[in-house]
């Protein structure tokens, strides 16, 4: 599958932009601040309906405007798929169109145009806060696993309600017993999320570990270890329920839910040691690349074709060496977007390369 048409309207710094990329390697050259990351962010947004860096849709809207729209048409052997998301600030909501028809539920649009984004900021999910890792893992799993996405969206809705109720209880406006109907959802969807995360992260760990070994020559072993906030055993439902009960007083005192998948983490281990404690900058970058390659590989295996690869800001020699080694490990053909400030960027990935630059009328091909 490849993206053959992209239209952005009042998205970030683009008032209106149209782009018709090729189905091979698209290298987009432009100075810092011109909107390269924003462009890849928009493609990622088409895949998962989430930004890889912003946590609200409002941030994605051009400053001073009150709506934005992202539309992409992708082509595959099965035909075209047309995904369009409009955001309206006034109503604080999004409207989605799939092949021109308005969808009842936005989550039906997730994963229609699958992609994986490699970014220099990927260091943050190895070293940064757990929320970064959760975002990355959710964006990945959501594109592949419909039931996970369903559980996640219902979990989040339940969590907001439970937290709102905790605040009411805290101020004496409701009885503690009213929590029960929300605890039920936390337990049911929480259990499903934890089980699925365990499975997907386990799979990613195996593949990422193999890539890391191949790229580094195998001095140290890379592992991803899932650390759920709530343990899921065989009789999982009971376990989560008991745990939730045991923290009830804390939850009421703090006014929010203190345990659950929204507090999950997973760690990168080098050997037996937490990577954030021992890894050098270069090793951390390689771990991030191995992790992204693993996502790409698993998505490819699962979907039957490689997802669209988005490589943001490929400039440093270090990255180029690492990446060109790394990409030998996923030789399958597929569409790639590379952004860079360098006009002399050597192709790091095989395929027919087209160079593009930003112009007032959109993105145009560079003639050498």
């Amino acid at each position: 599958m490849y993206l053959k048409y992209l239209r952005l309207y009042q998205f970030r710094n683009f008032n209106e932009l149209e782009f018709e990329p090729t189905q091979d390697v698209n290298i987009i050259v432009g100075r810092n601040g011109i909107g390269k990351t924003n462009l890849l962010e928009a493609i990622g947004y088409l895949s998962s309906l989430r930004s890889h860096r912003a946590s609200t849709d409002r941030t994605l809207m051009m400053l001073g405007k009150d709506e934005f729209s992202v539309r992409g048409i992708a082509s595959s052997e099965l035909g075209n798929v047309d995904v369009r998301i409009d955001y309206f600030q006034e109503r604080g909501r999004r409207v989605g169109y799939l092949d021109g028809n308005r969808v009842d539920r936005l989550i039906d649009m997730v994963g229609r145009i699958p992609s994986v984004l490699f970014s220099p900021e990927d260091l943050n999910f190895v070293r940064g806060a757990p929320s970064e890792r959760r975002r990355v893992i959710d964006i990945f799993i959501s594109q592949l696993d419909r039931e996970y996405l369903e559980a996640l969206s219902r979990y989040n809705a339940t969590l907001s309600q439970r937290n709102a109720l905790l605040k009411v209880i805290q101020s004496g406006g409701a009885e503690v017993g009213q929590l029960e109907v929300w605890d039920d959802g936390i337990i049911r969807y929480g259990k499903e999320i934890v089980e699925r995360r365990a499975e997907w992260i386990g799979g990613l760990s195996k593949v990422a570990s193999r890539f890391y070994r191949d790229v580094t020559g195998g001095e140290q072993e890379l592992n991803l270890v899932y650390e759920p906030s709530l343990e899921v055993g065989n009789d999982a439902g009971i376990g989560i329920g008991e745990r939730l009960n045991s923290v009830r007083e804390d939850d009421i005192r703090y006014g929010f839910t203190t345990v659950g998948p929204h507090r999950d983490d997973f760690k990168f281990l080098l050997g037996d040691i937490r990577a954030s404690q021992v890894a050098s900058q270069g090793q951390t970058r390689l771990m991030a690349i191995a992790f992204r390659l693993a996502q790409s590989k698993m998505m490819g295996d699962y979907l039957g074709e490689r997802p669209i690869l988005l490589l943001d800001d490929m400039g440093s020699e270090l990255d180029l060496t690492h990446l060109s080694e790394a990409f030998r490990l996923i030789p399958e053909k597929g569409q790639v977007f590379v952004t860079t400030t360098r006009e002399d960027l050597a192709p790091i990935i095989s395929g027919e390369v087209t160079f593009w630059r930003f112009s007032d009328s959109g993105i145009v091909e560079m003639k050498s």
Partner: protein
Amino acid sequence: MDVIYPRGILGQLVKEISKFPGVGLRSAERIAYSIILSGPSRINEFSALLNKAKSALSRCKLCGDISEGEICQICRDEKRDRTKICVVREPLAILSIERSGEYRGLYHSLDGLISPLDGIKPEDLRIGELMKRIDDNIEEVIIALDPSVEGDATSMYLADLIKKRDVMVTRLAYGLPVGSDIEYADATTIRRALQGRQEL
């Protein structure tokens, strides 16, 4: 390219119309233009009808449906199965379920769902009224709320209360598309969901 909105009184009219459920800005504009461009007699008749409907119709004292008298036709109809009550979020859902032709019992509108985020507590809903209606004759309460997390939580809350009275509680089977409201489901879907209802 900035979006152009109608200004002044016309803009006010469009804005008011777009407040109705299911009406987007574009449809609101089309309706507003059509109203203003139509002849004066049509506008007068239409506003007279609106006034007449508003004063002739009120809520049924029992089920909460829209009714021409104090008690609605369904609640008065002796031929209906008076051992069953179907609980819905709002009166509009009654219309959808009636269309399915599958159900012959009574109804009860809660006028909302429990939602702490919107400050809606169980006390704010017509739950007390429902409990009063569940007398010796009622054998089954069918909960037909939206399959949202708020619908699920409210169903569970009701089921706990009703089961204490030794009355059977069922809910619609998940033939309904999760996340969409009952009013939007077609008759076949509702019929199947009613047939496959499960005990809570």
